């Protein structure tokens, strides 16, 4: 059972309250009509599938019903951090220990136990 910290509710809750929704940070093409078949297919179907650190979208389905992001390890399943929509991860494959925080918002989210 995973325990997941919802960055909106600010609580650590059981996995069953949540649904995983796939890879996070996929931007919709700004001008879909201008996409080639290649670009459109890549946007719709091709996803990162790393053996290691993965950023993914989850929804707190039976809680606040809000979407948020999770950084999780796909072999150990350890959840390294959760963060709100629109925010960027502090832990990435390039910086597995967390990149140095640049602004106050990062610091605040760390203090609040977002790194569940």
């Amino acid at each position, binding site marked *: 059972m995973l325990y997941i910290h919802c960055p909106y509710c600010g609580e650590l809750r059981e*996995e069953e309250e949540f649904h*995983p929704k796939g890879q996070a940070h996929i931007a919709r093409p700004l001008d879909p009509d201008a996409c080639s078949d290649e670009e*459109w297919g890549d946007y719709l179907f*091709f*996803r990162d*599938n790393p*053996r290691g650190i993965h950023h993914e979208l989850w929804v707190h389905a039976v809680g606040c019903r809000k979407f948020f992001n999770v950084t*999780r390890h*796909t*072999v150990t399943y350890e959840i390294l951090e959760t963060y709100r929509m629109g925010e960027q991860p502090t832990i990435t494959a390039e910086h597995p220990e967390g990149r140095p925080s640049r602004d106050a918002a990062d610091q605040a989210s760390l203090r609040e136990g977002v790194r569940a």
Partner: protein
Amino acid sequence: MQRYSGFGLVKHALSHHENWQRQWRNPTPKKAYDVIIVGGGGHGLGTAYYLAKEFGVKNVAVIEKGWLGGGNTARNTTIVRSNYLWDEAAALYEHSMKLWEGLSQDLNYNVMFSQRGVLNLGHTLQDMRDIQRRVNANRLNGIDGEVLDAKGVQELVPIMDCSKNARYPVLGASWQPRAGVARHDAVAWGFARAADAHGVDILQQTEVTGFKIRDGQVYGVHTNRGDIEAKTVGCVAAGNSGVLAGMAGIKLPLESHPLQALVSEPLKPVLDTVVMSNHVHGYISQSDKGDLVIGAGIDGYNGYGQRGSYPTVEHTLQAIVEMFPIFSRVRMNRQWGGIVDTCPDACPILSKTKVKGLYFNCGWGTGGFKATPGSAHVFAASLAKGEMHPIAAPFSIDRFNTGALIDEHGAAGVAH
């Protein structure tokens, strides 16, 4: 190869079964082969077997990082069926079904293929409409199938709760009598032994760490036991396909998920067919040892951990007990997980890639076991000729950019 027979069994009994020949050799890798298969599961070993036996390519190596059939081949619930909706998928799985029917004789290895039939239950009016559509499509494709009503289902499976009082009452089912189960380990071992007899080198505990690519043409692989050369490389690595593709600079539209299964303590014979339900989401059969073999859906998140989560176990068993209240006090013996490489349209990828000579056979997701001989056969044909076999051609990776998807989601029962 020493052939297996009833007579041989008696003969070896006289020497206390101590002189059986090893089933396959443990060779040292050669410098070069005509074809390298990466992945020693059922599909990979089968590909090597058909290459050597039918297509005259005998200088073949199968490279496996662990042991034979240690991945999904040994982790599935062994169901074999071919009742898929779309023509392309039906052709592929029915090709496989026909090979299953003669496989034990072909390999001289008892794969315990038992055509005990598969039921796909319908619990809603829409389920029943989909079942009728699928059975009609199957029959037009020459695949056996019948639509049963609740009474027909009850006659086939007396222990199932088919009453109107059930939370999700059974309204009927599709029934494929030729479907069934097979012994999964025996499939890997049978293909390995038969391929070895045709001169295929099976290299276990050899891990591919990279591809040798020059001017867009593959010419070998790097392994932990040195470089091995070949102008044709077929990757059949299930859940790890994406990682392999990454080594060649190719992106696949796959996501790897844990899929788990469990078996109960052994019981006396109580269930002589396979029951699958899309709606309450579980499937069950009874093995020849007597234990109930149970499976259900994937864990929703990506994972490579070869283990499943407890909430999924709970949901699976809820579904089974909903259908079979009689099993409510059966204890579960073992539970395990495999890593399935799921495709967006729930159909596999059998394809060339942008690297010349490098082929992928992957994306089987939750339903690869049933396709083992068929997938292996058409993939071997494609590797031998350098052109995709007509049955394999629609499963090209290009379909995700052209839009010619083969959407089998939900259409073919619970496993997708």
